[in-house]
């Protein structure tokens, strides 16, 4: 039996400390240990992106990272982006543009899209499609997801212009 490790994580701004086996996958830590159930398990084989979270500024499929690798890291999930009373711009854009149907892929989509817009605040439609290629959706046909992300980008940019 492998030894348990002392793990420290910052998740959505909150410090967490616990003992875990190094082989525990980050998605299981989030969902089962910390009760953060926004990130979903779709495929468990690194393909669907439903488990996407941000780890130290990178979009990561949390089913493909051991908690041991994330020791000391800063993690953001959909719960850290917005709340029901205070939706993130992307959450509002997905709602207004029918960017979701069943909603299973949505937390991963929005978490990934938030990083995409941070790196490229003014993407073309093609850049959105390319930048979202690691996230699968079985419902929407993607059109409205792309539309939602472009709408959020436009809103963020006009807010920025107004502030300047």
């Amino acid at each position, binding site marked *: 039996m492998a030894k348990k490790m002392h793990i420290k994580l910052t998740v959505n701004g909150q410090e967490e400390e616990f003992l875990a*086996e190094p*082989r525990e996958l980050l998605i299981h830590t989030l969902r089962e240990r910390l009760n953060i159930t926004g990130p979903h398990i779709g495929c468990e084989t690194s393909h669907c992106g439903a488990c996407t979270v941000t780890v130290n500024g990178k979009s990561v499929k949390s089913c493909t990272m051991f908690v041991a*690798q994330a020791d000391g890291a800063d993690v953001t999930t959909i719960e850290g982006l917005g709340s029901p009373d205070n939706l993130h711009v992307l959450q509002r854009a997905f709602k207004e543009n029918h960017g979701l149907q069943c909603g299973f892929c949505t937390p991963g989509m929005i978490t990934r899209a938030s990083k995409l817009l941070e790196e490229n605040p003014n993407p073309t439609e093609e850049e959105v499609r390319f930048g979202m290629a690691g996230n699968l959706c079985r419902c929407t046909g993607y059109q409205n997801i792309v539309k939602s992300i472009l709408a959020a980008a436009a809103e963020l940019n006009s807010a920025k212009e107004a502030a300047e």
Partner: protein
Amino acid sequence: MIPGAFEYHRPKDMEGVLAVLQEHGDDARVIAGGHSLIPMMKLRMADIPHLIDLQDVQGLNSITVGDTITIGAMVTQHHIIENHALASAAPIMREASLQIADPQVRYMGTVGGNVANGDPGNDMPGLMQCLDATFTLVGPDGEREVAARDFYEAAYMTDREDEEVLTQVRFDKPQGGFAYEKQKRKIGDYATAAAAVQIVKDGDTCASASIAMTNLSDTPIYSEDAGAALAGTTVDDTAIEAAVAAMLGDIDPTEDNRGPIEFKRHAAAVILRRAIARAWSRA
């Protein structure tokens, strides 16, 4: 999909890595981005009692660009895409990296992991053979260098010893036109067939060409004869067909879920024709 238990090590320097490798031999393995290794461990196709994480090891993260280009083993595909100096000195690196996996995987997947893994589906090994790269390995007896063209022995079998770590790849700044052309079933997929091509033009003729193919044998295939078939020609249809014929003589694809052998040979020919045409147009 829970992998077998292991003990986790995260040394701060290469001495620490080598010490664990020496102590546990075959029972220890390094992990870089983990995006080839973790899926294998989850499927229990790899069972590794001691996992050594390279993320805190200093000196593996830099890209230096000059007449010679060096890329540290822990540089990710995402870093390659974002590095402007590298993109202008060796644009084939960026073109190929953009065709590997998807954004999430590219944030994690490293050059070292991609070239050391030994999976014939990985794109970097063929690319490194096209560029005639040299790999630096460090082990208990010190450092040694191996040519990318001599490194691959069979699927998952390379010239690297169990106690050795790959620290960097190095190649001369490539000359002339380039293309990385890849046929895949969907975005993010491994290649059905891929070709890396660099062509040097002198006036109207091809001075030299370097051609390597991916996922068409149990190792990447550097086709010296395909490159030679272009040298001294104007890269007209006859020359291109000669290069394609030479390449088809060197590959040895097997049937799998990407298709039967005849289809793969067909895809390889189409991809190489396209890659040569694009590289020549940029030469």
